[in-house]
């Protein structure tokens, strides 16, 4: 679970042994640069340098305070019980905020995978049915034979289960859409895992140092803003959507009827003989339990898109919007909105 990554003891160790010391080193290094600049300014009687030093020391405290705030909020998020939050709003949830965020994307990916299973099953069934050929003898005697086949051959070939071009065209679109939803949900989940592994924390010391370097303040602000947005806003938004997953990821068809086998069941000699005797057997092999539900499959693909693409994209947009707002607090104008075009 996410707790093992971002809220667990290993992560705490990473924070205390790596991030905080590096942050301290960055702060010290920046202090030294500022102090050297101040001394140089006094030595050369250059008011520009002393003024710069005074400005930067204030900015250094701002950066340090932001970093500590982010670490504190991350700690608080690890302790938030989402089931209690859910009770306030009449929803359902579990774990902390980071667990809930990861849980939502995992469930969205699973939901899309279920959609793929349902669509694929029906595509397979319809393909088999449409290729099922029957030989109908002339002068029929019963269902499967006739006098026409005894003396030479007088018969008609046909596909008694018909064609499914219409349905298969619709289902092919649904399969493509479900696959895209699955990959998108997985993509967002990997971004989240990347955040949970601690990459965003590495931006904090870098941000502290860069914000006080000449001409590098926007870059430093960007680092801290990205850390804030991806450590706090992005998981928070996903966790919020996770509380709504009862409705967002509600499955429109009964998944227990579908499976991922290439063939519905083991084919013995008896089954094969029966299949040669009648098309009803082949039809029931795939769709005997009411699995013939292409409208349900299309619904499933649509809900997979809503759960796996629409809402995670909304979370990403909110996170990217947040970067601009946090950067504005530091007095910088950073617009990452074009990043959303990658979605």
């Amino acid at each position, binding site marked *: 679970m996410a707790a093992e990554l971002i809220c667990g003891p290993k992560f705490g160790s990473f924070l205390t042994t790596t991030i905080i010391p590096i942050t301290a080193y960055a702060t010290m290094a920046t202090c030294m640069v500022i102090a050297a600049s101040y001394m140089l300014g006094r030595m050369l009687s250059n008011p520009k340098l002393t003024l710069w030093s005074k400005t930067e020391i204030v900015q250094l405290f701002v950066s340090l305070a932001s970093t500590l705030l982010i670490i504190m909020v991350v700690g608080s998020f690890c302790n938030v019980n989402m089931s209690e939050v859910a009770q306030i709003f009449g929803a359902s949830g579990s774990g902390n905020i980071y667990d809930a965020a990861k849980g939502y994307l995992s469930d969205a990916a699973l939901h899309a995978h279920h959609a793929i299973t349902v669509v694929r099953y029906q595509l397979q069934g319809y393909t088999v049915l449409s290729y099922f050929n029957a030989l109908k003898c002339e002068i029929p005697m019963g269902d499967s034979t006739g006098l026409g086949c005894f003396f030479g051959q*007088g018969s008609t070939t046909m596909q008694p289960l018909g064609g499914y071009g219409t349905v298969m065209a619709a289902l092919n679109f649904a399969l493509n859409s479900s696959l895209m939803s699955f990959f998108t949900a997985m993509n967002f989940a990997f971004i989240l895992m990347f955040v949970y592994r601690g990459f965003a924390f590495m931006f904090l010391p870098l941000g502290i140092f860069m914000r006080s370097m000449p001409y590098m303040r926007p870059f430093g602000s960007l680092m801290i803003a990205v850390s804030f947005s991806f450590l706090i806003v992005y998981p928070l938004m996903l966790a919020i959507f996770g509380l709504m997953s009862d409705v967002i990821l509600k499955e429109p068809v009964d998944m227990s009827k579908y499976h991922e086998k290439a063939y519905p069941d083991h084919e013995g000699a008896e089954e094969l003989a029966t299949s040669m005797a009648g098309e009803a057997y082949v039809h029931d092999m795939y769709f005997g339990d009411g699995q013939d539900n292409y409208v349900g499959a299309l619904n499933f693909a*649509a809900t997979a898109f809503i759960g796996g693409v629409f809402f995670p994209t909304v979370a990403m*947009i909110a996170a990217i919007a947040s970067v601009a707002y946090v950067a504005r607090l530091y007095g910088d104008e950073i617009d990452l909105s074009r990043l959303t075009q990658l979605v």
Partner: protein
Amino acid sequence: MKKLMLLLLMVPLAFAATGWEPIAAMAIFISGTLLAAVYIVGFGLGISELQMIAKEELFQLIALLIIIAALTGTNGILNGISTNAAFKSDASSMQDLGLDVVGTWNESLSTALGNLATMDKAISIEGSAGGQCSILGMGYSVSGCGGYSMLATPLSMAGGIAGFAVAEVSAMERLLEITKKYALSFILPLGIILRTFKMTRGAGGFLIALAVSMHIMLPAGAIFGEMLAVTFLDDSAASAGYEDDPGTVSMGTCNPLETESVSGFKSMTNSILEADGPGLPDASIGSGTNDGKAMNAYKKMRAKLKDYLFTMLIRATLGPVLALLLMMSGLRALSAIAGADVDVSAISRFV
């Protein structure tokens, strides 16, 4: 003093109903308390920056109050319009009406897709038939029903369009379900809470805009789309030939050993092009032959085209696109009003 009075007048408004209003009021109250604390500290210690921040945040809080008051009023007005007997007397809210409308679209589309699938199946069964006759190794095989195969391609294309439409409307139906259950009771209060803090103002404003757009614009778009369609259907002169319920087309049984060609091919082609008697097979086409039966089936399908166009393009494409565009436009405008200038182009491209 007048501003303070206005603020005090707005507070009971926030408590006027159960649902999101108490949570919104609570968030505003907490935010106001924090601002007061910041101002007191700034005043007490003589830090002018803190006092400035508190004043700026108070302005944001007043803006939020105005947004909430406008939302409450707009929701009431639109619900009043949407539940008007002229539109639908038995709907309890605009969101219910939107769900009803989209549910009807979905049902109509599913029926249309089912009809197409039934036609495709029947045509494929007939078109797959081939006859053979042999004695002592000599004989012939005939695919006398090949003419039916021309119908498979348009049906397949229609299936692709109908499938897309069903998925589109299903997605919209799910969005409306989410809207009905969570937009005001969950997303909006969370947005208000997040907007009260400076660091999360962007995300909060975006959530407020999302909740309002989903709650008002999405169902409104569906209702307006339906109104357009109904108005069109009510105009009998304009909508002649466009039915709300696309039916199915019957076709003659194919005899695979029958090889007689259609007589009078030129006159048959002309009659198809001229489209005399929509929905009816032309008596001049040799309906006794396989090719004639296939041509008649094609002609019946062609006559039904307007019904399918209405169901799929007006109901399932124009309606949802209108609703989603309204929602996206609303999201963009409202997010700017709510203090979050968010680029929603990524979501707009879903439409």
